């Protein structure tokens, strides 16, 4: 993301626009981080510095908040973050088989990202679909009653969406 001076300038302009919309207060920090994460799939130290400058706080404050929340941590993630629910009900419903299917299909373990930058696999604490487990989130989208077969289809649909977008 912010690798060149021009990119950094553009990023700063983007953050300033967000602050314009959300307000200059500290309470804008989490929405800003969420937006940056959604667009760039990572929050690197340069971005944290820029956000800190715009909000007039110390960059370590930005890091401290980003690293606290499961959905905001700064490490690079894939375009599609798959969060498999780990709670007891989804466990009873067979989450391990889904975990195995996803690992085999993606060729990565949990808390890892595929080399092509498309997928990150994570555990979620509870996604609130306990009556319809196993459940998982793909970014903001929820899938329920997942089977090893449909898990593969979900991954395939993400890949197809990328191909369609890139034409």
């Amino acid at each position, binding site marked *: 993301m912010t690798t060149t001076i021009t990119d950094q300038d553009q990023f700063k302009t983007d953050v300033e626009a967000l602050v314009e919309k959300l307000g200059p*207060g*500290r*309470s*804008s*920090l*989490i*929405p800003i*981080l*969420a937006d940056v994460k959604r667009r760039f799939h990572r929050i690197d130290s340069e971005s944290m510095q820029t956000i800190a400058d715009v909000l007039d706080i110390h960059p370590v404050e930005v890091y*401290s*908040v980003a690293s*606290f*929340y*499961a*959905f*905001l941590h700064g490490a690079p993630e894939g375009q599609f973050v798959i*969060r498999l629910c*780990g*709670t*007891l*009900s989804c*466990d*009873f419903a067979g989450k391990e088989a889904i975990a195995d299917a996803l690992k085999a299909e993606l060729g990565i373990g949990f808390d890892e990202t595929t080399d092509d930058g498309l997928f990150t696999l994570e555990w*979620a*604490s*509870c*996604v*609130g*679909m*306990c*009556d*319809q*487990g196993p459940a998982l*989130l793909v970014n*903001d*989208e*929820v899938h*329920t009653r997942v089977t090893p077969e449909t898990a593969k289809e979900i991954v395939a649909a993400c890949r197809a969406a990328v191909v369609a977008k890139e034409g």
Partner: protein
Amino acid sequence: MPATIETQGNALTYETIEPEAGLKAALAMSRADLVDTVRDSDLKGRGGAGFPTGMKWGFCAAEKADQKYIICNADEGEPGTFKDRVILTRFADLVFEGMTIGGYAVGASLGIIYLRAEYTYLRPHLNDVIQKRRAAGLLGHNVCGVEGFDFDILVAMGAGAYVCGEETALIESLEGFRGEPRNRPPFPVVAGLLNNPTVVNNVETLASVAAIMAKGTDWFKGFGTDKSTGYKLFSISGDCEKPGVYEFPWGITVADLLKEVGGEGAMAVQIGGASGVCIPAKDFARALAFEDIPTGGSVMVIGPDRDILDVAENFLDFFVEESCGQCTPCRLGNMQMLEAVKLLKQGECPPAFLKNVKELGATMQVASKCGLGQTSPSAFLSILEGFGDEITNRAASA
């Protein structure tokens, strides 16, 4: 409506509440009478802690401040809980109605609904409902034509932290900080969001307020027990035939509940989520009520073929992950508990270590800073109590 993720269950009282009847009844009252009415209903917080709603509103109403807030806690993170998701999907208007009634009662002009990141797909629906309410004059300047009563509602997003369901952690998060609970007092009703008096209520609590104002306190008190008035939504999952969201009056026994959902023959039931207690089959005559087994409504049915230590391990994994790390009993205590469960599973837990861990659990219950740490050992301790012989007599796996 968002693409409904169909959850089964029984008929819900909310379906029968006339829209805006509660709000109109509330706005026809004086603020003091309104607070008294909610107090008289004896409604207790539906998120799990069970604090009397009318009392909370009364404290906040008594504060003198230019700005006050009503926060709806939609950070439904307790494992096994999904009734707020269903309420927000099907009855968002009732929730916003409840917030508006709260705003009028305590003198707040802004309501904020704090929605967990895992429910981001509900956000467009909620914004849509809010927009329609503004257009209908149910939010904004002079709500329902009541001179001088301005009230609006915003949606704020969580970012993936169970502890933010704790009200002071939620407020920290809204202010842009790590979701670390504050010391109390001062309580949020005195000094909450941006140091202003703030009411934090659960989604179901606010919907219940709207229902109570529509139908009256006598109607509400006709359900439940003397000490637990009204009805409650339960999120039922696990080893049963008909999981879903069910409404029952307070006081239903575990056995009767299991009959309704096709969960007879269970070995145990985890009530209240990861922070709740594990009830073994011999205690199924006990009742779900504030005076017996209090709960936010999570009921996970544990079938006869499950390993009860897997249950304990799942919850302790959860707490090791979700402890905010601020205070030592919770941060380190849960790791020790998890270690004990792992040793027990292998049949290799030294009795002295187990004794220490039990004492540690008791320490965590009193010495942790917030509800997360205080309740985190409960499941394991109740499993040790209910299944102690079976657990401690396992042969070493080697």
